[in-house]
């Protein structure tokens, strides 16, 4: 019987011939990512172990990205704990280099790997065909100490992509449309697998954006077929695939969706749920106080270029705070070279150093009572971006930038 990509990665990591959904396997992990959201808790638990031990320190990557630079005495203490531990144990450590998932994609992840990340958006790594999944700190600690973990083999939802996105429509519109269609729990415990001819029209940035958001449909992981674009991306970053898996022709999927990319339209996810998706045009005219272009979902050079192309020669609305936050230091430097940073600065944007910013809602950029944010971030849950009584609309880089110019929700064709 054939296997899906998820099944193949688990089988390889478990050292068995084949696996099927519902099986539980002990798997060897390739990489363990943790960020400043929870690492301090992991360290506390680690220090309470009778025999503290790290199975393979080379597999650990720790990244400070949520509150960078540090914005309170409380986070300063947890950062210090993380930094001191990383230093003492020789753990690969980044601080201020960017949002964890982007840093991982640029520097570590490769096809066919099985990766735990103490962050829900770890599923982003599926963009290069790696099985990335978010775990809590207890699971993380166990994997850190033993080098392995147990995994329930998920069923797979297959998305066959055909056609090509129309101009002005983005990968983010695609994944938000899918989440709207299957619902916020439509892929609970499952893997979301993407393939087909349409995938070839999507670049690596688009792919990361799609996989990253799959957790918003409840997915355990997201996976894409490895192709020339994947290999090219890895090569550019000095890496080779561990495995280049595709699903077998006779692989069994829980459900197959056929999506013609040409049918996707610019959309907006309304407060307070990611699957509360409507045609962007329906939201046109809604007053905004802040706009955010950034995050692991949409803070790459392609996203900044898209925003810059729209805002060049125009100004941010005087009453709007337009936060532009490159997803990594590499993206920032590239954007400096291309003059994109200056385009945003000239327009009146607030260009922050690479970090999670208002997507995480507990650091600089937060919104206040009754304020409205339009965001390229990952979530629009109630209170996510700051005050408990505030509102977050999710949209593409283009829509967010256009809205920042107008001072109300607008699509790119309106500015």
């Amino acid at each position: 019987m054939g296997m899906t990509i998820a099944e193949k990665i688990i089988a390889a990591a478990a050292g068995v011939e084949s696996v099927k959904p519902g099986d539980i396997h002990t798997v060897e992990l390739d990489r363990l990512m943790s960020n400043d959201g929870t690492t301090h808790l992991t360290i506390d638990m680690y220090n309470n172990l009778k025999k503290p031990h790290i199975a393979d320190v080379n597999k650990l990557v720790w990244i400070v990205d949520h509150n960078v630079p540090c914005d309170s005495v409380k986070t300063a203490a947890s950062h210090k704990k993380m930094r001191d531990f990383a230093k003492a144990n020789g753990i690969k450590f980044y601080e201020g280099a960017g949002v964890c998932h982007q840093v991982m994609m640029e520097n570590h992840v490769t096809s066919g790997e099985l990766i735990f990340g103490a962050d829900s958006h770890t599923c982003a790594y599926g963009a290069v065909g790696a099985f990335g999944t978010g775990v809590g700190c207890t699971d993380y600690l166990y994997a850190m100490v033993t080098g392995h973990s147990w995994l329930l083999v998920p069923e797979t939802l297959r998305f066959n992509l055909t056609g090509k996105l129309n101009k002005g429509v983005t990968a983010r519109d695609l994944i938000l449309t899918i989440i709207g269609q299957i619902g916020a729990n439509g892929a609970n415990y499952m893997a979301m697998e993407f393939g087909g001819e349409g995938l070839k029209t999507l670049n690596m940035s688009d792919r990361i954006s799609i996989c990253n958001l799959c957790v918003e449909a409840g997915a355990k992981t997201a996976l894409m077929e490895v192709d020339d674009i994947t290999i090219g991306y890895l090569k550019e970053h000095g890496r080779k695939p561990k495995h280049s898996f595709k699903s077998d022709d006779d692989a069994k999927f829980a459900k197959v969706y056929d999506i013609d990319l040409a049918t996707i339209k610019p959309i907006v996810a309304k407060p307070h749920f990611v699957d509360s998706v409507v045609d962007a045009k329906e939201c046109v005219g809604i007053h905004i106080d802040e706009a955010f272009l950034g995050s692991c979902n949409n803070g790459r050079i392609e996203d900044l270029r898209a925003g810059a192309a729209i805002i060049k020669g125009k100004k941010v609305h005087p009453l709007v705070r337009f936060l532009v936050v490159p997803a990594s230091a590499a993206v920032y430097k590239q954007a400096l070279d291309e003059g994109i940073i200056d385009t945003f600065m000239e327009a009146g944007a607030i260009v922050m150093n690479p970090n999670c910013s208002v997507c995480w809602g507990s650091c600089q950029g937060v919104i206040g009572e009754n304020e409205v944010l339009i965001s390229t971030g990952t979530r629009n849950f109630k209170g996510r971006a700051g005050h408990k009584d505030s509102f977050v609309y999710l949209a593409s880089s283009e829509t967010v930038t256009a809205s920042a110019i107008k001072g109300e929700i607008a699509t790119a064709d309106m500015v």
Partner: protein
Amino acid sequence: MGKTIIQKIIKNNTGIDAKPGDIVTVNVDRVMIHDIFIPFVASKFEEMGFTKLWDADKVVLVYDHLVPASQVDDTRHFKIGNEFVEKYGMKNIHRSDGICHQLMTEAGYVKPGDIVFGTDSHTTTYGCVGAFSSGIGYTEMASILGTGTMWVKVPETIKVNITGKLPDNVMAKDIILKLIRDLGADGATYKALEFAGDTVKNMSVASRMSMSNMAIEAGAKCALFSPDEKTAEYCEITLTDKERDLVADSDAVYCKEINYRAEDFVPVMACPSNVDNVKPVDEIISNAEGGNIAVDQVFIGSCTNGRLEDLMAAAEVLKGKKVAPFVKLIVTPASRKIYRQAAKNGTLKILAEAGAMITHPSCGLCCGRAGGILTDGEVVVATNNRNFLGRMGTSKVSIYLASPKTAASCAIEGRITHA
């Protein structure tokens, strides 16, 4: 009897030949309010019964301490500020353009000889272009907004002469720190400082700004530099005769004169937790246990040292090098204009390549609300103006104030050192 610069400014403003100790009422040329205090200024203004600004064009509002907001109630200050601007017909508002003191001179709000008040102690900065500027509280600001006037006691003046050429590893910051050490944190309280000598004449306006900015740390009411061709170029003006005359008379009377030779200056730091606790960097190192003080973070920015020449000085040190492992370097340009200049001339790229985090222009870490807060036992070397207990996190954080060159060297080495 001859006049000091401050006496001339007051004479030009009031027509009175005032002498130190006299109390005079001056006509205010410009005021600056920033985001932290606008809610208080607005409420006091209305409580006082005023219904209009004395001159809306003379009022400047700057959001800088809370940009970007780090706490959910911060944006309330923007809301109140925006309402005030709208209600009273103000035009001069900067919502994310940088630090107030940088913008006041950079955006042309302050000219030589002006009398300017701001709701911030570092308002003394504008003395760099020969303006009498001083910090006040929000109640007095509200009263100026209604009346356009303010009472001041004419200060005595301390004259500081500096002659010669500074060593390469010394910046204006080292001079002002040394002066604060020599005067003490209250050594210039109620007094004006006046800077003169060829070292000062050869200095850029940006360097003069670092010095006038920190005069308050010796308690000074203001700190003045005579306007010259550099000032004219910076302000994009041609000096009038009156402005050109803002030079102390040869028979002016000073309460104190201090003379320095530029060659004698060395890189210094203000050690925790007072700005006047200044020591040569070499002495700090040699007195340290094991001859080493590890540094956890370096901050280059603020209204004291966040200008283009500061960023370029740091970049010169950092070029081709990397920030030490586990050490953070945070760079916060003082204004949008500076950020753009530094982006265009490659300075930001050099800093980013070295591993710096470059944040949006704002007060950043200097005001201790975000931008690199620290915890117990950590050491920060910073180019800003204050190292008070608890200013950048817990009261067990050690803050050392230094020049951008010294700070950049510390970032590379991960310990206290100098260029």
